[in-house]
């Protein structure tokens, strides 16, 4: 009996003040940080035009979502965004893998100079070159196509850099063993290097998907029809003053735009953050 109370006492020891303050601070900041999102989720479920009254007694309704879905070709926007993101990611994975492999494992004249040029592209943002890139895409006849939106992003300097680093850290013995087994260069790349760089691929894919799902300025410039417009451009047109700024309706549209990515993130939240931590992008 007596021993029981002693153990209970030791486990019930008051947590120290620092830890309580840490937790409290972390929670308050967390709630402040997601409050815009929570508010939008709530506003989207309010009867149209009443959200700003902050009246919590109103019944929840889905009519805003129904209205938004019917008002614009939302399904088309979704499809466009999915196609676009997939296209860009596929292009990036292929091009950056090949180039990263070349810079990591092949010696050729001028390699280091070219690599510095590649790094320089990190600073020559496609966003800044919109005027000239618009002219090029038009000349290529790719204006208002998914390829036209995606092509400027495919040779990503960031991807080449990341994969080069990852390939460089693969022990050369693995490659030599595969070569002795009679593997071709492509075979080595596919069987040794690509599997070894898996966490980097995962983290890079996540960054790429999030970036291009969210990209706005370039798609705005290169598209002009609902058949090619991605979600972000659709959403921005939807919020235009002509339709009248109704917070509930805009919230519903916003929630619909971010829902797929948000749900994917909430489900894979742990793996998502782990992928970043493990890939060592720092």
């Amino acid at each position: 009996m007596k021993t029981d109370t002693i153990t209970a006492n030791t486990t019930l020891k008051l947590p120290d003040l620092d830890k309580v303050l840490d937790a409290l601070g972390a929670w308050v900041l967390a709630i402040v940080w997601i409050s815009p999102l929570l508010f939008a989720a709530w506003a989207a479920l309010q009867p149209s035009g009443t959200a700003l009254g902050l009246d919590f007694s109103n019944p929840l309704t889905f009519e805003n979502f129904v209205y938004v879905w019917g008002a614009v070709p939302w399904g088309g926007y979704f499809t466009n965004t999915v196609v676009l993101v997939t296209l860009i990611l596929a292009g990036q994975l292929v091009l950056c893998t090949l180039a990263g492999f070349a810079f990591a494992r092949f010696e050729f004249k001028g390699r280091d100079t070219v690599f510095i040029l590649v790094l320089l592209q990190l600073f020559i943002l496609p966003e800044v070159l919109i005027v000239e890139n618009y002219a090029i895409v038009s000349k290529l006849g790719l204006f208002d196509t998914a390829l036209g939106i995606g092509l400027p992003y495919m040779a990503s300097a960031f991807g080449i850099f990341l994969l080069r680093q990852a390939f460089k850290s693969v022990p050369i013995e693995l490659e030599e063993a595969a070569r002795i087994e009679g593997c071709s260069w492509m075979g080595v790349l596919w069987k040794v290097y690509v599997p070894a760089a898996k966490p980097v691929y995962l983290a890079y894919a996540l960054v790429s998907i999030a970036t291009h799902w969210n990209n706005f300025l370039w798609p705005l410039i290169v598209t002009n029809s609902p058949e090619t417009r991605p979600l972000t451009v659709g959403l921005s047109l939807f919020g235009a003053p002509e339709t009248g700024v109704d917070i509930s309706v805009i919230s519903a549209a916003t929630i619909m735009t971010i829902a797929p990515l948000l749900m994917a993130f909430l489900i894979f939240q742990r793996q998502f953050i782990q992928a970043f931590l493990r890939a060592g992008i720092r």
Partner: protein
Amino acid sequence: MNEMARLQKRRLALYGWMLAAPALALMSLFAFYPAIATFWHSLFTRGTSRRPSVFAGFENYGDLFADPTFWTVATNNLIYAGVTIPVSIIFALVMALLANAHIPARSFVRSAYFTPTILPMIAAANLWLFFYTPDLGVIDQITGLFGASPTNWLGQPETALASVIIVTIWKEAGFFMIFYLAALQTIPPDLREAARIEGAGRWTYTRRVLLPLLMPTTIFVFVNAMINSVKLIDHLFILTKGGPNNASKLILYWIWEMAFAYFDSPHAAAMTILVLLALGLVAVAQFRLVEKRTHYR
């Protein structure tokens, strides 16, 4: 034998070029060539159907410098960078330290910080519209409880830029937090123990041990934040459209406006070149910094 080795070497070099070629070709088409072409076009006047464009030297640049809007926009962007960069880095660091501590509901806290990052800026701007709507918006309703009069946050020059800046910080801090979290995981826990035994408090430990060890991450994050301070303008399309009276206009938005709303591509080209020059300076400074760091190690 020697001949064969040389042949082999040449074959490998050729192979290397072939692997890199597709990426290099696209990069030339969408980064290097456009950069040069932009410079070339910035030297010509704007062509109309009646008057074809003629070579004008650096006249377009002179026009920019003479335009008061240029100075407003440049100043806005400097303020925007000067506030968003340090503030979002500090928030990111604090978030990482909090989200790395052993606290209950840690994964909720991490997601809450990180979630704004995965939203499109356009959507983020929509969410913030409620907060900024004069009188009816959430901010005015809260300040109204304390008797403050309604403020047109986005519609008056004094607060428009600040409102845009707050949205950017909200969006960026969680992203930078991830890099700090990653760095914190590589710091061995015995360092904290050692510091505790030496009698160092939390603050001393953070300042003398953690911050120096996080320096490489801070440089990386800093450079990213700097690039973003030119790149992130999507919220302007929803929140202010650069107004009122250019009070919240940033450089890239201005370039977009010049080129695609006023069809004045020579001046847009000149402005683009100025941005590229500034980014080039950042690039050189960063390579220097990284080099210094590697020497130091």
